[in-house]
């Protein structure tokens, strides 16, 4: 088997490559150059800096595998960054990392992998795949704290059969131990937290620079539509936010809605944040079988899955058994049956 390993320069993908190479497979390492500033400068923070590529290159050399940096700046800019900005401007809460998985890593790169004469695409995600009863299952990673199955929920069966997640079966401490054992310089590197294209880590600053319209001050209204204050721009506001609104009303108020068309922020009491039902778009099924009615739904990367009833069809929606708080449009919702991911969608 010839495996293409997507190496970010972090410890997880380093170990993914090491494990495959150690098993005797023919391994090729690649780093995707995703983003550059207006003058061609590489990001200085996040997960695709020049020094990350240097780390990945060094790991590949240590493992004795060929290594390349691929230029994905166009795909990333159109498929991820433009969409991220469009979502923000329209008051949604996007997840660019999921979008990057969908449009860049598991779509373009899976295609290109075949041109590189590779059979499988390997990443350092904490998730597992398993071929059982004639279909591929996407399962939660063994390390529940690091589990990344949520961000992979939009994969398809045909993608699943071409991908491998070698670190999904081990925990993070074991990953670091293996990296140290192989003498990889990434063994004790800290995890990247930032959105890679934002650089300094302040995504609001980035949005302001790219889409100045989100900085327009506008009204804050209460549940009856009465103006109770002003905001400095919808970019500063997220659903469920309580602090920093500068609204003086007796009991705590939360942002319950953002209406970009009128540049209005709506606030309300905590119970108004609760939602029993959400509608969805872009419903996908990774399990290869029709989605069941009863599922466990997870709508945050590191949240808990909660029991819910799923209705597919024309206008797909999910009804939670118990009301859920601070769900924002644009977020991904993943459906589980135990450890298995069944599918996913984007909350409307």
């Amino acid at each position: 088997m010839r495996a293409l390993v997507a190496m970010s320069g972090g410890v997880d993908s380093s170990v993914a490559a090491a494990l495959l190479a150690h098993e005797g497979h023919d391994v090729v390492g690649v780093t995707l150059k995703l983003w550059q500033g207006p003058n061609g400068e590489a990001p200085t923070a996040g997960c695709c800096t020049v020094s990350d590529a240097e780390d990945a290159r060094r790991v590949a050399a240590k493992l004795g595998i060929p290594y390349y940096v691929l230029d994905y700046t166009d795909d990333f800019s159109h498929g991820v960054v433009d969409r991220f900005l469009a979502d923000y401007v329209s008051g949604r809460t996007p997840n660019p990392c999921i979008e990057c998985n969908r449009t860049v890593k598991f779509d373009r790169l899976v295609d290109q992998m075949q041109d590189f004469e590779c059979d499988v695409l390997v990443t350092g995600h904490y998730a597992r795949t398993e071929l059982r009863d004639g279909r591929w299952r996407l399962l939660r990673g063994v390390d529940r704290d690091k589990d990344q199955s949520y961000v992979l929920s939009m994969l398809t069966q045909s993608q699943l059969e071409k991908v491998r997640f070698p670190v999904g079966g081990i925990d993070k401490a074991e990953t670091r131990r293996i990296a140290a054992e192989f003498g990889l310089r990434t063994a004790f590197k800290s995890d990247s937290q930032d959105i890679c294209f934002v650089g300094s880590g302040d995504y609001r600053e980035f949005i302001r620079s790219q889409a100045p319209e989100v900085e327009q001050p506008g009204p804050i209204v209460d549940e009856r539509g009465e103006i109770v204050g002003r905001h400095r721009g919808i970019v500063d506001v997220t659903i469920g936010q309580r602090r920093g609104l500068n609204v003086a009303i007796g009991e705590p108020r939360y942002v319950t809605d953002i209406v970009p068309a009128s540049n209005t922020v709506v606030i309300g009491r905590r119970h108004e944040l609760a939602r029993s039902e959400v509608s969805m778009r872009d419903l996908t099924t990774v399990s290869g079988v029709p989605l069941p009615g009863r599922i466990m739904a997870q709508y945050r990367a590191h949240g808990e899955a909660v029991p819910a009833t799923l209705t597919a069809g024309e206008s797909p929606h999910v009804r939670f058994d118990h009301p859920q708080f601070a769900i924002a449009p644009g977020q991904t919702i993943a459906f589980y049956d135990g450890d298995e991911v069944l599918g996913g969608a984007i909350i409307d």
Partner: protein
Amino acid sequence: MLYLDHAATTPMRPQVWDAMQPFASERFGNSSGSHEVSRRAKNALEDARERAAAVLGCRPTEIVFTGGGTESDNLAVKGAALADGGRGGVVVGATEHEAVLEAAGFLERFDGAVQTVDVETHGLVEPARVGRLVDEATAVVSVMTVNNETGAVQDITGIVEAVKRANPGAAVHTDAIQAFVGRRIDVEALGVDLLSLTGHKFGGPKGVGLLYVREGRNLEPLLHGGGQELGRRSGTHDVMGVAGLVEAMELADDDRTRFCADVEAERNAFEKAVSPIADRTIPEEHASVQHCHIRVPGIRNETLLVRLDRRGLAVSAASACQSGANTVSHVLTAMGMAPDQARECLRISFGWTTRPGDGAQAAKILLDAVAGLR
């Protein structure tokens, strides 16, 4: 592994390594000093300088040894622009090496006047176009003799004439780094004031080069310190590197007729065999003999390089960013090529170790690599 990326760098000739070794052992001296050990190093250095001058047809004092091609280009452009306390204008070709373009960009950031000469379709710099951009304020014009990426050969004597007609005081610099291996360089015949060379493009060591500086031409130094190289480049001399550089210059000079015949035969064999799938980007009459720059329509060079690497053929896409990703080349963009087409270009460059049959072998590998994609 079949190595056809000699425009990136070349293997060192064994005689060069032989010439260098004494300076790593018994002849270790610092060339600036007043004892026997130092004098021996100084003599070796000056001997090398005389030999380099003989190769280029200039005086020994017109040779400044540097730490390689990038430094030579920087010293030429910045040094000439900032000479005599001035802030002279700079004119550069659009397809120059980054060492020249970025040096000009540096000057621009400090309020220097920089103008870029557009190139014609095949990357050729039209002398008249250069002349029109030169005025009284112009301090230096820089156009490379042979383009590192495409192999396009420029009319340097024509450019010198056009520049001197517009402003006799303006210096003309040429980066002859890719040119030297395949063309005799005579600075008088070219008429240039400044000329860059680096050792590793013709069988010499990396990290050592030279800048020819015409007598009477002042340069503001980039490296300040002990005042070596007549104050033009401070720093303890790399006598070992210089010995290797000059040995390689002489060997390349002596071997040039054989070299040109051999690489031309291999390049032609390669081009003929790949002609069904690839197009030349520079017509033969404008290209250097050792470069072969082609476009393989419909196939990204990124993909092709991975497949060629797997099959043991080392070639290049010639344009990579800091992280190592292949990017759309500024050279091809300046030539008017669309980004998608620029991403389909490959550079195959032949060198002194190229053997009969290498061209045919490389073509076979390329055809095989492309076959699975079509």
